[in-house]
């Protein structure tokens, strides 16, 4: 085992820098090769190897440090990037490929960063790279969504920046240590900054607003990195903060309810990301070893099946060009393979036994139970039911089955590499479902938990079957998709945006414009006045008198009179003073 510590980040970043200059074929190959190489590096390099440090002013920077927690996240990020590479193999858009690689690279950078400085650098690069993925989707709508996304992330970055500065100034060193203890303002700000990226409800609007409008392949990458890096940072910095549990649970329910309302397939999936991340946040909130394990495992499997879901949705979008449930239906005959792959992902997310969702979700929920949070456990299960209802049943039913609005339309064939990517993800989902130890080996802490006890199986089977039955009975009466958009939190800051804009920007600008105009006008008036200094004496209203030397020449007598007057004045003055 070579102990040479090649920072995985370097491989990705160098790849991202090279790719834009390569011809098309090479670019696609590289978008697959580079993440695969990074995956190999992460697997090979031992966890204990010494971190790479750098000196900046009087602080030490830890560029890359590998320990169990960051290693597992590194593995899944590299792996999902490879799958994304396959999925986007057919792509010829130079921008998207570089942005994707840069995005994955900076995500891996965040996972392996040992100090706040590098963490912040990769954090912001992630924001920028992901914006490009949104902007590359043509159309005014995605441009606008891209801006909101970018501004929101710059704001989040700002919170993180100020938090880190306060924290670093307090502790005097850049190196990252878990902040479980002190609740200083710095740590609260860092928490807020990270929660923005973790899409916690009040701050999640960017995700549900931007992901549905991203490019088809871009959405896959987006779904995998931003939120999960936030979960990693939460796990690293804030294990056991009680507020996270509460927020996590709320998230799970919030996501599910909105998912049921949503009409655009990728918005539904976006809300499901929010709800699934809720599980992880709750796991981190509980803080026990098993909870952290559960959260990490859930993150791992979540990345896989959500990516698969997005690939499926993307495939449907690419094939039919339509994105709303109300327009879709009856694709079963046209895209059978996509349907089955999608179904695997649907079963995984709903927590069907024999799929990877079950092994990780049940661990998190059990951890909640063990840590004496019965209410959290129940609510999480409720959310699981909701997830199955909307993603497992409603979405596939209304896209693949259901009435065919206009059946004559031809469906374009999908490139083979897409299927390959989706197949790979589905295979791993099933693999982990069957042999959980493959995943448990990688988890940060010792795992002594068996998911396949009779108790859990019974629990899962009972819940899922009854939900299916209820869905079937009520699917047309209540669950019929409606052609409308559910208002979300972002309505709060988009509606008044134009109002604020008018009052701040335009007001200030008009103010300064006015001052400048006044200055110019008074300068002009002054030049008019100066043209004829005697103007005020002439006291003739209207046209100023033209100044000519002859007109204002004082007569000699006047000069002499001034002389005498001055003489008399000064005489009196000095005599008075002397006297």
């Amino acid at each position, binding site marked *: 085992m070579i102990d040479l510590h090649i920072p995985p980040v370097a491989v990705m970043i160098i790849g991202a820098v090279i790719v834009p200059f390569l011809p098309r074929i090479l670019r696609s190959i590289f978008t697959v090769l580079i993440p695969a190489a990074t995956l190999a590096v992460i697997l090979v390099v031992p966890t204990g190897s010494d971190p790479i440090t*750098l000196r*900046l*002013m*009087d602080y030490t920077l830890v560029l890359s440090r590998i320990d169990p927690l960051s290693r597992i996240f590194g593995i899944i990020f590299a792996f999902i990037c490879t799958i994304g590479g396959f999925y986007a193999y057919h792509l010829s858009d130079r*921008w998207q490929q570089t942005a994707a690689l840069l995005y994955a690279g900076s995500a891996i950078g965040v996972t392996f960063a040992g100090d706040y*400085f590098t963490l*912040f*650098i*990769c954090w*912001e*690069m992630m*924001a*920028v790279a992901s914006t490009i993925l949104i*902007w*590359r989707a043509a159309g005014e709508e995605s*441009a606008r969504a*891209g*801006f909101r996304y*970018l*501004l929101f992330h*710059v*704001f989040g*970055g*700002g*919170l993180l*920046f*100020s938090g880190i*500065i*306060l924290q*670093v*100034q307090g502790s005097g060193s850049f190196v990252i240590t878990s902040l479980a203890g002190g609740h200083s*303002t710095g740590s609260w700000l860092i928490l807020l900054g990270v929660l923005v990226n973790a899409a916690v409800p009040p701050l999640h609007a960017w995700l549900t607003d931007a992901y549905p409008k991203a490019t088809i392949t871009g959405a896959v990458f987006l779904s995998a990195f931003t939120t999960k890096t936030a979960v990693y940072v939460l796990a690293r910095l804030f294990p056991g903060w009680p507020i996270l549990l509460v927020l996590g649970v709320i998230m799970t329910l919030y996501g599910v309810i909105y998912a049921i309302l949503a009409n655009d397939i990728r918005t539904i999936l976006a809300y499901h990301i929010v709800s699934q991340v809720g599980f992880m946040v709750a796991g981190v909130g509980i803080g026990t070893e098993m909870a952290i394990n559960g959260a990490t495992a859930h993150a791992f499997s979540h990345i896989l099946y959500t990516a698969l879901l997005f690939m499926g949705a993307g495939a449907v979008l690419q094939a039919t060009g339509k994105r709303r449930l109300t327009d879709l239906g009856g694709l079963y005959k046209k895209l059978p393979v996509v349907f089955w792959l999608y179904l695997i992902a649907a079963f995984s997310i709903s927590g069907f036994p024999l799929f990877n969702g079950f092994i990780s979700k049940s661990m998190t929920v059990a951890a909640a139970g063990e840590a004496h949070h019965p209410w959290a456990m129940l609510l999480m299960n409720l959310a699981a039911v909701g997830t199955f209802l909307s993603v497992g049943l409603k979405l596939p039913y209304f896209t693949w089955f259901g009435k065919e609005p206009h059946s004559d339309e031809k469906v374009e064939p999908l490139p083979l590499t897409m299927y390959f990517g989706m197949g790979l993800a589905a295979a791993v989902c099933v693999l982990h479902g069957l042999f959980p130890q493959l995943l448990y080996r990688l988890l940060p802490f010792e795992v002594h938990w068996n998911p396949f006890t009779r108790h859990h199986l019974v629990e899962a089977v009972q819940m899922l079957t009854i939900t299916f039955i209820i869905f079937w009975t009520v699917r047309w009466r209540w669950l019929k998709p409606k052609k409308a958009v559910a208002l979300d939190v972002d309505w709060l800051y988009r509606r008044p945006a134009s109002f604020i804009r008018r009052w*701040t*920007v*335009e007001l*200030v*600008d008009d103010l*300064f414009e006015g*001052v*400048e105009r006044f*200055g110019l006008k008074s300068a002009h008036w002054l030049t008019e006045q100066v043209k004829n200094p005697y103007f005020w004496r002439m006291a003739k209203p209207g046209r100023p008198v033209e100044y000519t030397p002859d007109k204002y020449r004082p007569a000699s007598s006047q000069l002499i009179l001034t002389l005498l007057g001055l003489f008399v004045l000064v005489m009196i003055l000095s005599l008075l003073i002397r006297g």
Partner: protein
Amino acid sequence: MPIQEITTSLTPLLVVAVSLGAVPLILLSSRRPNLREFWTLLAAIAKFTLVLTLLPGAQAGKITQISLFRLFPGVDLCLKADPFGVYFALIASGLWILTSVYSIGYMRGGHEHKQTRYYACFAVCLSATMGIAFAGNLITFLLFYEILTIATYPLVIHKETKTAITAGRKYLVYTLSAGLLLIAAALWTFQLTGTLDFQAGGFLSASGLDGKTLVPLFLLFIGGVGVKAGIMPLHSWLPTAMAAPTPVSALLHAVAVVKSGVFGVLRVVGFVFGPTLMKQFGLDTILIVLAAVTIILASLIAMRQDNLKRRLAYSTIGHLSYIVMGAALLSPMAFSGAVLHIAFHAFMKITLFFTAGAIYINLHRENVSELSGIGRIMPWTMGAFALGSLGLAGIPPVNGFVSKWVLGLGAVQSGHPYILAVFVFSGLLNAAYLFPIVHRAFFKPGEGLEGKTEASPWMVAPLVVTALFSLLFGIYPDLFFRLVQLAAAIGGQIGGLLT
């Protein structure tokens, strides 16, 4: 305070004189443009190498000094190359080389008239900037400050159109009255203390003056240097001076003139008043308020400017106040952050101005609304623009983020954590007015761009070099000339007093 041993050597004088020497040569060779441009480049490179020879000394904290004849009884024309002076001179002379290359492309591309006058005035401006950098006392600083004003005037009115003349007039009114305020302030200080030599930590602190004289004196100083530093109430000459050709606004209104204004502010705060005095009489709160107001308002106004150069001008005003804020916070870290931002902002802003110039010459477009889709035909130029705007918004990996980080640390160290909010909010505003341009250039379909290609290599090369510098400095700030370490030393030297 470590006693800095002073060695006398001619190099500071040579640095100032080298571009003056080039002026007659430029004027004589006005018939042969290539020779004339050669002289400019030669002078630029010579100046840069001379400053480089001073660098090791500065990094070791040594001061090389030369005092010529007496300028004013008790004060002589003294050129002192202390670390801070060398730092600024390095940035200005380094960027002059790039700007000369750029202006060759710009002038030739735009078929500008009167190029000899342009290059001659540019050379004089640079020698004045070097003079300001190495000024050892307030009178020398004043001397070069006024020469810079006069040498920039012909550049502002270069186009000789109506707008250029009014811009020139407005520029003159502002800068001349600033000079007058500075004269009054310098003389009053001379009256109070009897010496005008800059001294790290401020020479006024020993004089034991009370607030009643110090506050008006400080306001006079700020009035004097504030105009060129673009502090809010005194800033409005800068956007109007954008009527000048772009290399002028690039080097002068992003690097030389405005930076000498800010350099003046730092000199006043760090070397005349000194942190202890500032804190004692609450002078720093005045400056903090001014800087904060400028940062926010300038960025707000920038959002609405459709003319690209005016928008960059307001962005410059905003970023200059970053530096003023760094100085006003009075902690060693904040001071080195301010010093750092001088350099990094110079690199980023000069890239943006170069792109504005390249777009103007190549497509004759000036307004932001007309820039749709030019990213495809001018990938290198707009790529550099994207890098620059990333840096300005303080987003890593470009170098703007590093100086913002150090400024942030300084803000917390000096006990003003709320200033962080100002930096963050301004970063947001920067993003709000710069990224739409980047997005428009790359992701919007352009019209009327058929047959147009990238601007001439003369222009694009310096453009890409400065963008690359910004990126490299962002990745590892201490890369060239160990700028960060030098800035920290300067900060420590001044702020060190403040225990």
